[in-house]
């Protein structure tokens, strides 16, 4: 038990040092990388580690005869959480969202410290002591608070009232509802029933199993399967079309969506929000192939009215590409990211 706790204490102390380093810009905040797509899980695990660390720390401190008062434990944990959100998480979260998390965590901390009558008393005690001011130290504290609190409150309200120009928070519809059908180059495609004409096996038959077996492997690098090189001249069917799709992608799409399809292309930094990241499990992996067909063909201009705030400058690719080319590009995008398109059944 003790060994476990001291391990926890070590983790806690190290974690705190790391966070302090990030706050004072000694340690770059990307020392431990937040991996795209896994970020929420990663953050939860990190916070869990911290909590375990704090448990260990407080256990060790009380074992050494220097227990931390409940009062400071509560405040300390809440402060930690706010600092973690502000300095660890990248890209930064806007203040309004942090305020929301702050309130929720404050409620949680309150529930924790007021779980039993005794705990609550312990928490209240230091406040009461200062209020009653029996000792000289507490008296000093009381006068200090008497002066400091009005100054702080005044300062905050001044800060809040001075006109500021912070960026307004923008929300965005991620996957707007698609129409039932879409008309591209004069032909109507029903989204429910249309199929990619290039998801075919070497015999030329539509074959999802075959294509799924030949996409790149998940895991670091997302490399192609050893025997499924689209650049092999002998390819027929799926892999041949993947290569053709890749050629179109690298002539038209990578400028924004990036060489690795992660939305970090050459021009991406200029746009807001940055272009879609196909390697994120929340984008094409969640959608049907025909949905992508509709989005690619119609672009930002084709977004429905509820697709506020219309922040996409994606061109309607039907103006630059043929239907075949669009299907091939989509085929390539799924191949390169190693995802399967969602199916209707």
């Amino acid at each position, binding site marked *: 038990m003790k060994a476990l706790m001291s391990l926890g204490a070590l983790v806690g102390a190290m974690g705190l040092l790391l966070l302090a380093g990030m706050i004072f810009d000694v340690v770059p905040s990307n020392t431990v990388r937040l991996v795209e797509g896994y970020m929420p899980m990663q953050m939860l695990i990190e916070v869990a580690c911290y909590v375990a660390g704090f448990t260990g720390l407080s256990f060790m401190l009380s074992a050494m005869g220097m227990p931390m008062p409940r009062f400071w434990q509560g405040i300390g944990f809440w402060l930690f959480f706010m600092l973690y959100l502000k300095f660890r998480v990248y890209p930064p979260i806007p203040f309004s969202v942090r305020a929301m998390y702050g309130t929720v965590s404050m409620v949680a901390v309150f529930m924790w410290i007021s779980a039993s009558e005794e705990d609550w008393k312990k928490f209240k005690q230091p406040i009461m002591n200062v209020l009653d001011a029996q000792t000289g130290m507490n008296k000093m504290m009381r006068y200090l608070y008497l002066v400091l609190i009005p100054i702080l409150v*005044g300062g905050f309200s001044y800060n809040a009232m001075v*006109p500021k120009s912070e960026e307004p928070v923008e929300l965005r519809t991620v996957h707007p509802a698609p129409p039932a059908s879409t008309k591209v180059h004069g032909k109507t495609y029903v989204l429910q029933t249309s199929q990619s004409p290039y998801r075919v096996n070497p015999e030329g038959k539509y074959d999802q199993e075959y294509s799924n077996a030949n996409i790149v492997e998940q895991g670091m690098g997302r490399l192609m399967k050893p025997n499924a090189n689209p650049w092999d001249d002998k390819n027929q069917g799926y892999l041949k079309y993947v290569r053709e799709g890749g050629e179109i*992608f*690298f002539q038209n799409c*990578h400028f924004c969506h990036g060489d690795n399809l992660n939305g970090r292309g050459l021009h991406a*930094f200029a746009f807001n929000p940055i272009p879609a990241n196909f390697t994120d499990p929340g984008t094409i992996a969640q959608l049907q192939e025909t949905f992508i067909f509709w989005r690619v063909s119609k672009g930002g201009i084709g977004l429905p009215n509820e697709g506020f705030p219309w922040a996409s400058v994606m*061109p309607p690719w039907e103006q*630059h590409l043929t239907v075949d080319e669009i299907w091939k590009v989509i085929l390539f995008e799924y191949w390169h990211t190693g995802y399967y398109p969602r199916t209707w059944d």
Partner: protein
Amino acid sequence: MMNSVTRKAGFGAVTAFGVILIATNAGTVFAQGGLPEGFKKGELAAEPSAEMIEAGKRVYFTKCVWCHGVDGAGDGPGADRLWPRPRNFNQGTFKIRHTASGELPLFDAKKPVAGQNDLFETVTHGLPGSAMPPWEGILSEEQRLQVLSFVTTQLVKDRKFTDKQSESQTILNLAELKPKAASEESKKRGSELIVEKKCVECHGMEGRGDGNAFNLKDDWGFSIQPANWHKCWNFRGSRQDPYNVSNIFRTFSTGVNGTPMPSFADNTSVDERWDIANFVNSLCERDAEGKPLPIDPLSDKPKINFVIPSDPVEGEIPADIEHEAWQKAPKRYVAMGGQITHKPRNFVNRIDDIWVRSLYNDKHIVYLVEWDDRTKSVAEAKLPWAPTQVNIDIKEQEPKTGEEGSIASNQNKYAVYNDAIAIETAVKWKELPSPIKPRYLFGTNEQFPVDIVKWEADGSVRAFLGTGWDKDFVERDTYEENLKVLKGEWKNGRWYVMIQRPVGNKKDQDYDEDTFFEVGQYIPTVFFAWDGHNGDAGRKMAVSAFYYTFMNPPIPQETYIYPVVIAFGVVLLEGWILTRRANRKKGKTL
């Protein structure tokens, strides 16, 4: 010892130009064994294992082949629309190295040690300012070494990394050369040396890469441009650490193979190179306090603030940039990307950022826009289409032209049009709920149009109305008399343009067509920019995302009064609590 020799040579140079040649030649600095100062002899690395090479092939054909091509000749499907073109590996010419000019870069498949593995670092950090992204976090360290094993053994065809007969390694000993403090004295000496060493001939008087920008070609005959020292985040060798002076020192010491940038190792001392590096580094854009700009780790460019504040001034808005009001006005970085929705699409975008400041008074608002453009372009040719035309049916360059027809080989051969800048603001933005912006590039529809003000290098300023993504503009002749160009000057590779427009009022202006600027409100604003020598004209241009113009209100009096009132209230509250507590303890109730 060596240092003092060259320092003397340096002083001599300042006093008389004639002395320079003799002094620097005499002072040409060689350390032991005829190596340039700061360099040491190195060993060629061992050949990577066959497994590494085979594994690397798989990485190459998943990730790299699309630009660098099947044979590594830099001719993949993506190549023809890129400038700079992807590297042709066949000749073994690599830009960013620790090795002497002309030598192969450092690569050891077993040793990913920082500073000792040039190619590994290039793949890891990418080459900013080109299409080569950083592969760290995408490919594992192992995979990066594997793919380089494949490239260096199979795709570099004219040279061999392990051939002791023909290859040597003379390595810049950067780890042991402590950077010289960037003192005023050092920077001053650097600023003299860049004239003396003729850096300014290509990089320009202010280092904006505007010197001999036009006639430079790389080893393959493609047009190439000297680096702009003010955008250190675009230095190919910046290694995602753009304000690090060591990167500049390295590039200056080893040169950039395959380009006209030579190595200066033979005719400068280490001390002089630090002075030059310090000076070049000091030119990179910094914030108002002179601190490096914060760099966004996701894009490796300066972090963007989407609000462009405009400060109030009393009376006339000054047209002089040196005026105190302009010097105090916050300067914002606006990122620009190529316009690739409408034909002709701008795949190669030469204006990748502009800097915007703004001031307003009760009648007008002025934007001061500054941007780097290596060439001043005033139209030589007549625009083949009307300036209002949005849908242009034009034949674009084919994506599969081969080297002959590619963008890189035709760069700088375009008909020259006007350099230009345009500011697009939303009309009736108030009727769109706050963070909602007008739709797409050129306005939503007839009901929510945009107001476009365009300045061109021939001095003209015009106003247009955009009524939809694919609708032709409407030229607004009646509005143009309200616009005024306070300044339009090109100097040493940078445009300084000041455009004044009315803030708008119901009496003189038209609410349905003009943007009304209101104090304390977020007004959606977009910038367009054209580089005339890049063939930019019509919709071939650079575009920004939506920014907000925000006219800072003067601080109202209540801001000073209320906090005091609130603080006083808190004091009263405190008194009440304390009295209550004290009474309670005495057993009294209130």
